[in-house]
């Protein structure tokens, strides 16, 4: 990664070699204490272990990678310059919706609707797809805060936890059902968002980031320690699963069940498939809601705040309220996702709501392209499926995501799919004449 960024302007091969050697030297220095040397625990006492061959490979890779990259960058730059010279003042073209992306979107929707039918007997596929969709929904929720309003929320998982625990407590203590608890849990999460946002949103963006980071930790610490409320580290178990409009997914008994009502043979897959369609519906509703909001005054104000807060104030917009609304709506959507999570797992504990989880959701939004709905889907797919490919991938997942976040910010701060669709147009054809 270091290799990509250190690029300056030089073209001669000798300079390139020298530059790559410098990078390799830095890599060597960085690698000695981390890769070259390590300590292993031997019966309570540490012993030194060395990995010099690995370090050599690492340094070699950095050298070669830097050399190649440098060459590629120089080539690209030269080609770009040549193109700019030949082009006669390129007109700024108004981009209309890329038809390809629209098609991909519809295709993804079609596949996700058909998925349980294609894999009706493969519980594992449907289960994994459900996990992907939870992250998609969380990503779309956080997108309101980070992508649209430009507020960095590093404790998003706290709202997810608030939703999950609200449903967990309401259902186990007061016997509330999924559908009853859903709106209330969303409202509770939104209130937490307002409570946190009110004092901090008038501050600079970086303060907000660190306060949300702290808030995520506070919620987790409270959940671990307030045993009477949250069950402490053991969490809350036997949370009721959602029913199909009052028909439970149970083996046939006295009361009508989903299987008996529809005259089906009981299968545990029914519930898996139902949960899948439930989160699909929730995620799609989220998407619909967010894209509608984006085209309303409030949504445009979110984006305007992201672009220039001072200009917003000069236009008479109450910046704090606008930010607060984005924060609260993001929190509410996170809360909804939390309710689903609790209902699906049947068990929740503070372990599911660590900073790592916040980081994953943020990575999804950032890598997918802030503000891009389809990008979030793609990033969630990659993120959830990567660990499924093998243990190595699982271990390196967050490492790669951390590195990718830096690279994306340098290379394409808008994210991979960073096209921005205007919320309204003067000309329906997007100005192409």
């Amino acid at each position: 990664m270091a290799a990509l960024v250190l690029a300056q302007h030089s073209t001669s091969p000798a300079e390139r070699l020298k530059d790559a050697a410098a990078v390799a030297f830095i890599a060597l220095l960085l690698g000695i204490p981390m890769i070259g040397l390590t300590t292993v625990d031997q019966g309570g006492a540490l012993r030194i272990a060395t990995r010099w061959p690995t370090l050599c490979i690492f340094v070699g890779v950095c050298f070669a990678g830097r050399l190649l990259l440098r060459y590629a960058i120089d080539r690209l730059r030269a080609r770009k310059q040549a193109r700019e010279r030949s082009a006669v003042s390129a007109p700024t073209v108004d981009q209309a919706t890329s038809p390809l992306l629209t098609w991909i979107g519809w295709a993804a929707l079609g596949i996700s609707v058909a998925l349980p039918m294609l894999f009706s007997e493969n519980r594992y596929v449907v289960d994994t797809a459900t996990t992907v969709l939870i992250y998609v929904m969380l990503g779309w929720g956080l997108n309101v805060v980070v992508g649209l309003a430009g507020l960095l929320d590093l404790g998003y998982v706290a709202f997810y936890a608030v939703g999950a625990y609200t449903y967990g407590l309401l259902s186990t203590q007061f016997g509330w059902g999924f559908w009853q608890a859903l709106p209330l849990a969303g409202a509770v999460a939104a209130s937490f968002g307002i409570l946190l946002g009110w004092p901090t949103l008038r501050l600079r963006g970086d303060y907000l980031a660190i306060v949300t980071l702290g808030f995520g930790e506070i919620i987790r610490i409270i959940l671990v320690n307030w045993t009477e409320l949250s069950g402490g580290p053991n969490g809350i178990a036997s949370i009721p699963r959602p029913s199909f409009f009052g028909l439970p997914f149970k083996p046939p008994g006295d009361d009508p069940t989903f299987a008996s009502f529809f005259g089906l043979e009981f299968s545990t897959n029914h519930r898996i498939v139902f949960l899948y369609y439930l989160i699909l519906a929730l995620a799609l509703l989220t998407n619909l809601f967010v894209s509608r909001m984006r085209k309303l005054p409030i949504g445009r104000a979110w984006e305007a705040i992201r672009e220039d807060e001072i200009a917003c104030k000069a236009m008479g917009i109450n910046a704090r309220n606008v930010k607060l609304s984005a924060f609260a709506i993001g929190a509410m959507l996170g809360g909804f996702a939390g309710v689903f999570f609790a209902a699906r797992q049947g068990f929740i504990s503070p372990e599911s709501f660590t900073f790592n989880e916040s980081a994953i959701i943020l990575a999804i939004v950032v890598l997918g392209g802030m503000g891009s709905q389809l990008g979030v889907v793609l990033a969630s797919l990659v993120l959830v499926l990567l660990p499924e490919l093998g243990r190595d991938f699982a271990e390196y997942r967050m490492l790669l995501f951390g590195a990718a976040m830096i690279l994306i910010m340098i290379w394409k701060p808008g994210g991979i799919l960073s096209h921005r669709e205007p919320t309204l147009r003067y000309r329906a054809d997007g100005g192409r004449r």
Partner: protein
Amino acid sequence: MALALQQLINGLTLGAVYGLIAIGYTMVYGIIGMINFAHGDIYMVSAFIAVTVFTLLASFGISSVPLSLLVVLLVAVFFTSIYGWTVERTAYRPLRGSTRLAPLISAIGMSIFLQNMVQLTQGARVKPVAPVLVGGIDILTIDGFTVRLAYSQVLIVVVTVALMAGFTWLITKTSFGRQQRSCEQDRTMTALLGINVDRTISLTFMLGAALAAVAGVMVTVYYGVVDFFIGFVAGIKAFTAAVLGGIGSLPGAMLGGLLIGLIEAFWAAYLSAEYKDVATFTILILVLMFRPSGLLGRPEVEKV
């Protein structure tokens, strides 16, 4: 009374460590106006380097405590400074002049990267270090409770005070210090005066990392355990210290560090040990609400 005295000693020790880390936040904030989220992880990296070097020295049979401490400090400061330099060079420098959000996200990415890098290369489990500096002085005993000042605590306070003195000299009296301060005031003007701003910023990161490295070594000596997640909480606390003292202000960072250390020690002793981290975060939010410029900071005027 005895307990209070003991907690005062513990709190000052803890506060010295937070103060050292907080200076890194405050300096970077002062010079490029952003929170270096990866700073806590730099401190964590240094703690791991300390563990490795202590083990290495022990395996060579070096048993002199002052010698091994000195070697560990130097090695940790050297390598950690390079980490600090690399972080700035890769994650922040290319983003100067980018959007407001981009460097923050890149910083978070760097923090995630460092945490996972250490977890992968050094292992996810807690590392116990053989005690380096054992023993202490029993100061007094009241009602059967002995107030004890451990040698490691003496070491931490002495090293911190010495570093602070040297650091204050560096910033106020040397030419690097002048360049650093002028970059904080006006980077464009500094560049126009022929000062290499990039180099000054790099040095600032290295200096912050070096102080964090000392903190990392001290914590390794003091607690004797290290894991890849210590940077996260220590980072937030040190940041809180920097904000409490007034971000951008060096004496403020030290003062804030001491206050946070004391608050934490007393909170843990008298109120609740489980919620001591909550206390810090609450202070952070309260300070940001009621006195965003901190105790010693200058109020920030919104530039329109």
